[in-house]
């Protein structure tokens, strides 16, 4: 597998140095422990928003640090949860004295490392609210699984909660808004290929030329079901039905439709997908009030896409529209 890297073990450090060099007006990068903070951190009197996760999902999370979104992001090794010391130092670096919200994607590693970090931060007198993202409909939330994974809704939550903290809303209110986003967001993903973790040197799984994997996550792991490739209209129908019928989203609902590329799928195909999503939702009487199309929560070079729907109300729409100035998302500023 060809990669544009020097040594596999240096990928994350090399990337962070690249980010620091590219965006000094937006962020500061700390190496050892690794974290990215907004250039003007800490912002006194403002609730701070911290997230993190494995590297390999860029622009999430480091690319979403700046005004109107995350105060800090903690990058782990590729597809590996970051460690508590990263979250603790990042939390302290952005603590403005009004508390800190941790946005935690529901993966066993992320949850445990963030839990340990929150314990440590609380031990140092910082008030922490942890918000879980578990929007993936591909996995059953049952006693028999680790619960639903946190996927596409994470990006939307980081933007919306980021706008809320920029408005200087108090800690509990920001956490409530974030949880409200989680309750109203649902996602599903699929892949045409796996991806190769630099240190592993080969794809995590193999897919035949005429196969696709449905219900994938964002770490290159196999999904729920493997099947023969179908035309995209049928793929979207299959996935959109699963997403729409989960909450469910009903006739008359307004949504944000997020068509996300997994990293290896070109924009031309993402727009083809969005066209299908648009037709499908129209057929169901669900209005797309806002959209996001592009590769925002990726899995290295995996070819594939995910659909996320977020049910909107006036407040969420307003927070979504608010200005944001980060390496990965920028409007109104």
């Amino acid at each position, binding site marked *: 597998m060809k990669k544009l890297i020097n040594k596999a073990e240096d990928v994350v450090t090399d990337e962070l140095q690249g980010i620091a060099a590219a965006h000094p007006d937006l962020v500061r990068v700390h190496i050892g422990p690794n974290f990215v903070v907004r250039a003007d951190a800490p912002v006194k009197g403002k609730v701070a928003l911290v997230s993190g996760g494995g590297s390999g999902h860029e622009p999430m999370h480091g690319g979403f640090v700046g005004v109107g979104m995350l105060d800090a992001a903690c990058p782990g090794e*590729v597809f590996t*949860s970051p*460690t508590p010391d990263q979250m603790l130092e990042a939390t302290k670096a952005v603590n403005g004295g009004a508390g800190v919200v941790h946005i935690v994607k529901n*993966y066993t590693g992320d949850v*445990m*490392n963030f839990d340990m970090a929150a314990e440590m931060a609380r031990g140092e007198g910082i008030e922490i609210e942890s918000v879980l993202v578990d929007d993936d409909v591909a996995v059953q939330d049952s*006693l028999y699984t*680790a619960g639903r994974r946190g996927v596409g809704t994470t990006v939307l939550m980081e933007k919306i909660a980021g706008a809320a903290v920029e408005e200087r809303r108090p800690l509990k209110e920001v956490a409530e808004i974030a949880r409200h986003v989680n309750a109203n967001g649902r996602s599903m993903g699929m892949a045409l290929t796996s991806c190769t973790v630099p240190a*592993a040197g080969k794809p995590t799984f193999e897919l035949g030329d005429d196969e696709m994997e449905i219900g994938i996550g964002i770490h290159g792991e*196999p999904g729920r079901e493997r099947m023969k490739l179908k035309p995209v209209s049928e793929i979207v129908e299959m996935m959109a039905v699963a997403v729409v019928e989960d909450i469910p989203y009903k006739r008359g609902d307004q949504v944000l439709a997020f068509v996300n590329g997994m990293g290896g799928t070109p924009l031309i195909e993402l727009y083809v997908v969005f066209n299908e999503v648009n037709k499908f939702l129209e057929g169901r009487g669900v209005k797309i009030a806002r959209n996001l199309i592009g590769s925002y929560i990726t899995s290295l070079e995996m070819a594939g896409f995910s659909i996320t729907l977020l049910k909107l109300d006036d407040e969420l729409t307003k927070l979504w529209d608010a200005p944001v100035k980060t390496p990965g998302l920028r409007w109104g500023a």
Partner: protein
Amino acid sequence: MSVPYDQVVQFVRGFAKVVAENKEYLTQLDSAIGDADHGINMDRGMQAAQAKLDEVPEGDVGNLLKTVGMTLVSTVGGAGGPLYGTLFMQMGAAVAGKPELSPQDWAEALTKGLEGVIMRGKAELGDKTMVDALAPARDALKEALDEGASFGDALRRSAAAAEEAMKGTIPLVARKGRASYLGERSAGHQDPGATSSYLLLKTAADTWADADP
């Protein structure tokens, strides 16, 4: 009868070596039902822990194990970091201040370590995790010691129990961790966490059993 401090150091070095040797294998197991990083992560963590060994003031086995645990927490990441970190930290707490490990000390350390792992990860037997190897290993050790077996025999029985249990994870459907997203597809694959736990118990036997056959 007891394992002196420098033999506990050898155990840590031994585990680091075994993890490095099995890095590809553990990663391969983790590709089938995970995200292909268990071997890579554990190797990174154990290399870091090994590098710390010379800095740790000699003579306190508990402190040594605790230091290994803390290093693992801050270098491994994923689920393995908190779980193996907690395992070693709790093992260390159980034998804090001790200059050497008696067989009972090791049984107590494994017991407290296992409790920590369960507290942190909330896994139960049969969930297809490291607990599935650690629990039978601890039970076999205690049983052997209660029967009056030598420490060497008890360690070997403990490792054998871990090995059998590790293989026993193959047919299980995962209920915890990343493998659980695969549902039924996780069956038919050996669990990477149970495998690295077996390697830990095997290292204990290989390092200490010959000193006291």
